[in-house]
């Protein structure tokens, strides 16, 4: 019965053909010009001394919208996936100066140096999950210092493991290459703290001598990190 054969063939082919027909294509179209947005934010004034995110047009986290329960979450307030949930607290040395928190950071602390304008910065951030694991995070910091990435076998020697209460903390100390342009050599002390399904980063960056001077203070500071009650 060839007609039945044909029918089965058509059914199979149609099914397979349907399955492949949703392809994302590049499109081109002309639209009336939109009214300009309220403020030109991206490129203009990025004052590094103020909020580090000012001018980026980065929407604030949890910006207070309230979608109805049965509907989809509205887009503008969709949280940027920084870690929420339980927080950590700490006690910083007195000479570390606190700066206002920002959407992407839990806290920022500035450590003034001896020379005019010289300072180190401690950035405290938290993201869900393990953010790629210790190796990826250490290599990200190494890349920022223009150091070559290391392999898994070298990771153990790079990290110092400490305990603060129930927290298991890995600390990496990285020294950047000596610059040839007269700028100061950079050193990073970074603590990685897994906590309740998120990972907290305490990253102290600054001139080599200043960060080296603050090393003991940083280790003492790390020991004060604990879950908020």
């Amino acid at each position, binding site marked *: 019965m060839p007609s039945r054969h044909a029918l089965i063939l058509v059914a199979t082919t149609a099914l397979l053909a349907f399955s492949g027909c949703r392809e994302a294509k590049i499109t081109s179209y002309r639209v*009336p010009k939109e009214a300009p947005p309220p403020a030109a934010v991206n490129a203009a004034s990025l004052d590094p001394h103020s909020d580090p995110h000012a001018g980026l047009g980065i929407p604030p986290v949890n910006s207070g919208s309230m979608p109805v329960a049965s509907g989809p979450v509205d887009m503008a307030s969709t949280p940027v996936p920084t870690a929420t949930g339980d927080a950590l607290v700490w006690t910083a040395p007195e000479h570390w100066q606190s700066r206002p928190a920002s959407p992407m950071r839990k806290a920022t602390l500035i450590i003034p140096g001896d020379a005019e304008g010289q300072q180190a910065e401690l950035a405290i951030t938290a993201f869900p999950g393990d953010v790629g694991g210790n190796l990826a995070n250490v290599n990200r910091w190494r890349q920022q210092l223009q150091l070559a990435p290391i392999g898994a076998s070298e990771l153990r020697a790079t990290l110092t493991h400490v305990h603060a209460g129930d927290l298991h903390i890995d600390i990496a100390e990285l020294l950047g290459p000596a610059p040839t342009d007269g700028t100061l050599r950079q050193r990073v002390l970074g603590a990685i703290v897994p906590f309740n399904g998120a990972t907290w980063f305490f990253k102290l960056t600054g001139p080599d001598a200043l960060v080296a001077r603050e090393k003991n203070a940083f280790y003492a500071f790390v020991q004060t990190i604990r879950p908020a009650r």
Partner: protein
Amino acid sequence: MRDIWDSFVQFFTSLRVTVVLLALSIVLIFVATLDQVNLGIWAVQEKYFQTFFVFWNVKGFPVPVFPGGYFIGGLLLINLIASHIYHFRFAWKKSGILLTHAGLIILLVGELLTGLWQEDYQLRLDEGQTRNYSESYRENELAIIDATDPDWDQVVAIPEKHLRDHRDPIQHERLPFRVAVRAYYPNAAVEARQESATSPAPANRDIGARLTIIPLAMTYKPNERNLPAAVIELLGPGNASLGTWVISTMLVQPQTFDYAGRTWRLALRFERAYKPYSLTLLKFSHDRYIGTEIPKNFSSDVRLQSDDGTTDREVRIYMNNPLRYDGMTFYQAGFDNNDTTTVLQVVKNPSWILPYIACIMMGVGLTIQFCMHLFAFVAKRRRTA
């Protein structure tokens, strides 16, 4: 050849295949339901059902480990259709079973078409604002806009998938340059570079020179979305670099530059679907029961205007009373900004009617079958009595 065909037919019309496929589908649904805790509803649908195979990532390579929804559903459909073609003998006695199976075929086809054709967008409007496009929840696009004309924007929209699968520079007839993707992050935060940062900036043009990209783990929660970022390089004739830019859905404003005597804008944004009509939010109402904060009603009064001038009317959209227009359905879905912004869910599903038809057919078919058996049983009892 004939033998091969016969064994092919025998396989597809076998009841054993039906049972195995049903068993596989039970396992698939069970595992997918458990995994929904980790991935959320959308990712589960894509990973388990809207795919031919379920893949596991083994050392960076996707390895198929189980047949997916399209595979099982497709084979079930072929199995059902083939069985009817080869074993079909019409008899009134079997009309109930035939109707039920026809309903099942329509249900399977309807699910396939829904997976392929359904579009789910949202439209955000502030009071007084007019928009002629809706935006995707999950899909993003790189919009390269020729903004030279004072009244019109010529847009080239490149879906995020092309950035993800970048190999060769992307070329388009409306662009005088090519787009090379130098880095792509499916979910990333961008923040201002530290003053003391010594590593090179990710890009050398516009805001990219002052940013750091922090890759983040992808999120699958239904109330969160991934915010992709990328570093792109524009290449002129002879592969001459025009510079590199950081693009991210976190950057609200497009980045502007001039090239070849024209003004261009770059933005990685939520995918847009433009319509030949526009909606203006006249008023959003959030009524509460008197003396309480308990919501009583949400409604949006909108003005609908088509580009061709044939439609210009005011509509009230409220819970369970959506606006249906031009094949789209606009539901009241959310609100924002202290009750001055409405969020409408915009859904297009050309095959929405099929599940209803399928369920009615299966219901009627099962009723007929049941009644036939009941009448035969009653008649038999009467005879023996």
